[in-house]
């Protein structure tokens, strides 16, 4: 049994803290936020589910129930929607892995490796995160131009012609190029979160491990990584939701091209909406909504299980 000794001088403070800790606030405190959330998020989402089963379009004011017709269209092989879903999954999975690995490596490097001018490096790496996606995409569109772009021109100048590619216009290079630009932009943000996570790990753990003879890799594998799991759970969910909803970077860099090589679910939702086929667009966005909720929940459960384990 643990016995807590309290200094009588601090008794009042201790009691106040105890009250605060156990305080149960009344439910009506949350009603305001809940109403706004229901009104502007839940209700439109439910309406979206309803319209997903209709032929709602811009050419007619009549909205008729069509059952699963929109979903049949989405999942029929000849329509190309499965390709867009596959592209979205590829983008999401690859960006999660690449961004997390690079961000983690940079975070470790700038907390436990490079000490001198580390804040400056952090700031430089974080800088792309604050730039507007539109500006970044337009700049990279110019840099990656196969004929006049900075990248290929540079490669030709230093004699590395074999590395020059048709970055955004070759179907086999377009998606990797988009992923590359997205990684460049997003890795700084994740790095900052991970640095905060690493710095929250008590240094005594590493010191004890060092005394026990653990090398850097073992310290990383058995101390840092397990301690960072909650942070990794957060970044993975953030990346997952971002990846599934990706739109702006693809719209500006490739507009889904070449052909349909980089079209994703959101670019197609935009396309369907612009064509006035609201029913199909809402069916797609409803599916994506469910996928995001399901996958987000799954990731959190898996990560939490790891923590509990």
């Amino acid at each position, binding site marked *: 049994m643990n016995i807590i000794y309290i200094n009588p001088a601090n008794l009042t403070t201790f009691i106040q803290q105890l009250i605060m800790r156990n305080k149960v606030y009344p439910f009506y405190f949350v009603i305001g936020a809940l109403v706004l959330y229901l009104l502007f998020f839940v209700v439109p989402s439910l309406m979206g589910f309803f319209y997903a089963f209709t*032929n709602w*379009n*811009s*050419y*007619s004011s009549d909205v008729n129930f069509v059952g699963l017709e929109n979903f049949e269209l989405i999942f029929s092989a*000849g329509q190309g929607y499965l390709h867009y879903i596959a592209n979205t999954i590829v983008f999401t999975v690859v960006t999660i892995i690449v961004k997390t690995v690079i961000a983690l490596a940079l975070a470790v490097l700038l907390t436990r490796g490079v000490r001198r001018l580390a804040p400056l490096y952090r700031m430089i790496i974080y800088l792309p995160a604050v730039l507007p996606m539109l500006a970044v995409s337009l700049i990279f569109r110019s840099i990656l*131009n*196969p*004929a006049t772009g900075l990248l290929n021109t540079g490669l030709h100048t230093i004699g590395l012609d074999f590395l020059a590619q*048709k970055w*955004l*216009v*070759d*179907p086999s290079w377009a998606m990797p190029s988009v992923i590359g630009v997205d990684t460049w932009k997003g890795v700084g943000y994740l790095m900052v979160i991970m640095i905060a996570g690493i710095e929250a790990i008590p240094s005594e753990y590493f010191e004890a491990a060092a005394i026990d003879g653990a090398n850097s890799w073992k310290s990383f594998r058995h101390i840092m990584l397990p301690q960072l799991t909650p942070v990794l759970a957060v970044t993975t969910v953030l990346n997952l939701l971002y990846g599934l909803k990706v739109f702006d970077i693809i*719209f500006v860099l490739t*507009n*889904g*091209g*070449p*052909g*349909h*090589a980089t079209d994703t679910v959101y670019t197609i939702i*935009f*396309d369907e*909406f*612009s*064509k*006035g*086929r*609201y029913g199909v667009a809402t069916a797609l966005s409803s599916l994506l909504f469910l996928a995001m909720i399901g996958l987000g929940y799954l990731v959190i459960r898996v990560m939490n299980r790891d923590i509990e384990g």
Partner: protein
Amino acid sequence: MKKIIYATCAFLLVALLIAGCAAPATTVPAPTSAPPTTVPPTNAPAPTQPPAPTQPPAPTQAPTKQNITLTYMASQDWIFDADQALGKKFEEKTGIHIDFQIVPSDQYFNVLKTKLNSGEAPDIFGGQSGVTDLKLQYDVEKNAVDLSAEPWAKQEDPLVTAQSTVNGKLYGLTYWDTLSGGWVINYNKAIFKKYNLSVPTTYAEFKALCQKLLGNGIQPLYEPISDGWHHVLWFPELGPRYEQVTPGLADQLNANKAKFADNPTMLTVLTQLKELYTLGFMGKNALSDAYADRDKIMASGKVAMTVMGTAFPQEVEQAYPDVKADSFGFFVMPLADNQLLNLNPAGPTKFIYSGSKHIAEVKAYFNFLTQPENMQYYIDNNPRALTLPFPGVKSKFTPELQAFMDAHKDKRGTVYQTAVNYVNPQWMDIGKDLVAMFTGTLDPSGVLKNIDQRRADMAKTAKDPNWQ
């Protein structure tokens, strides 16, 4: 002391917040030193009362000087220096500023339709005319203003107004050169002469010519695919040829009694187009080549041919005075052995958004644009325009062009994006499919099947009786 500083800061912030939230002044008085200027025509009757529902709206009264900005959204290749100069001139006369919102061409229609569908369109929006487009792309009966009673409406060429008319009402002003021939192959005469080449009359001759050029280190064609629309021209612009091989095809397609996928001539055209790409005739970087570079590339003399309008040589001369317009010649696109000239009375057109708060001002702007001196200014200062579809303007036809037009006087026809329903609204989709065809992920028959599928989708959505 700190409390005083905090209180001062808080007070200033609140004051700024209130000032920021304050409603802006709604009116700005006209300058008293200058009399109110009106935009011609001065004899246009003013709409003193709302028009009766069954009658067309009355022509617009010219507004007085006022501080108004009209937003005008258009695709990047539809706005020229002459447009902006006329916009400034209009502003000088009326005080009404024209804010040109130029959108990249590969994204334009998606952006425009999204704005129209969400009720957030600009005062003026640009769109391609053509009855199907007007109904399906822009839903002009809902989104645009009836311009039938405007003074210029009766002066515009009837062939052109027909493309902007739905159920007897005119909805758009086609301020575009639609009369000086369609998209043809502009070729560099000096290169042709150097390699002893003559104008091809069949696809086989055209292919042999391209191979000879490529063999001599000259890129045969400049095809700017990155814009998403230009490479599509090769297909529907050959409508006259499809019609020649299969008379009545356009009618059959419109009646849903024929399919693109079943037409062998269309399959031939796409197969040959793919061959042009895969043989490298369009260059190594066609997928990233941009329409905006057309003048520079063709003036450089490194590329022999490109598909452009008949005004292109003058456009090059204006941009590069050393390269004279007569250094280029024309011939029709010879895919599927085509020898017919493609004409299109439809073109980029200006519409007034029905939700605009400044409809009268936009009408005045349109009236201003269609004044003879302003139209002539536009023609004289826009190399892309050789004429406008209005009487009384002096066109800029060169002897070369006149001879070309005369040679095709009896060998011409209407392009399929205008003759066949549900083709033009899917222009950018066809563009994506063609790129997929070039890069090997779709075959020519797949492109045709996709066109049929999209036509069926649009027709069913529009409740076209031929598809029910």
